[in-house]
């Protein structure tokens, strides 16, 4: 059975559904699925380089598995609206991230919510696709840009 995740804004109640691409990205899907054995509650952050990107930094309690062992799977530098990607960086692996998270390993679960993203850092694995609620995520992202980060819950749906 196809695995799906539900994303919910804890502020507005808006929801989206992500379908896992297990055939195309089996190892990354396993890591994400295992990591979401318990629902993830984390802040939705707007990108500052990629453009139309909503980013979730996965909290420590939702880090199950070894992301350093993941090969590129179904990767691209030109993601499409609705693509859900994963990137791992060791602590201090990039100057980019916010001061509050830069000193820890970063598990970056991110969603391309609109056209014209620029993945300046190269390619990342596309492990999921937003089947429902992409327009709602785009609205949430605009609100985050104007008002600041907002909490979301991400959980297994099936």
């Amino acid at each position, binding site marked *: 059975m196809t695995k799906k995740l539900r994303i919910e804004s804890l502020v507005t109640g808006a929801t989206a559904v992500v379908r896992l691409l297990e055939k195309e990205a089996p190892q990354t899907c396993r890591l994400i699925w295992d990591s979401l054995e318990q629902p993830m509650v984390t802040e939705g952050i707007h990108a500052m380089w990629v*453009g139309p990107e909503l980013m979730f930094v996965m909290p420590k309690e939702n880090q199950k598995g070894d992301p350093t062992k993941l090969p590129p799977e179904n990767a691209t530098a030109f993601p499409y609206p609705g693509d859900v990607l994963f990137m791992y960086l060791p602590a201090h692996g990039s100057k980019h991230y916010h001061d509050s998270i830069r000193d820890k390993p970063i598990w970056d679960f991110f969603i391309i919510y609109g056209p014209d993203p620029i993945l300046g850092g190269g390619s990342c694995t596309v492990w999921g696709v937003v089947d429902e609620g992409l327009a709602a995520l785009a609205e949430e992202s605009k609100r985050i*840009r104007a008002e600041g980060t907002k909490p979301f819950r991400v959980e297994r749906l099936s």
Partner: protein
Amino acid sequence: MGMGKNISIELLESQVRARARLLDDRAPSTCEAIWNALQSPLEATALHGVWTGRCLEIDLPDSHRTFNADDIPLENATTTPVIGDLLWMYLPGGQARSLFEGAWNVMLAYGPEAVMRTPLGPHPSNVWAEITEADPGFYEACAKQWFGKAERIRIARLG
């Protein structure tokens, strides 16, 4: 007051201010256009850049679009600003899918890894002023706009 033209930049909620010097000699057309536009002080929301890294994006309100942006040539332009640069980023409407309304932006580079670009690629932008003095906490307040609420900003001529 020193020689030349200066402006103040204030983040209204954080209550921090900076002073910037116009680069009349290097970017004369841009400086003239913006100085004239600042005949009355400008207040706008400083959104964080989304393709451009560590900079704030100040969309000039209609009240301050007092010049013909197509007449401003490239002058003292860069795609890789340094901290404290104020840039003019203009894109006519209708050219870019994801910025279809165009851009009339003053960009404030507040940290490293700022890059002037649009969805169409690198976008050389005129550096028309540079911050010469900033309150302690000014750049930190700018950086806070990434995770935090977009603040109102006020830009005004100084004597």
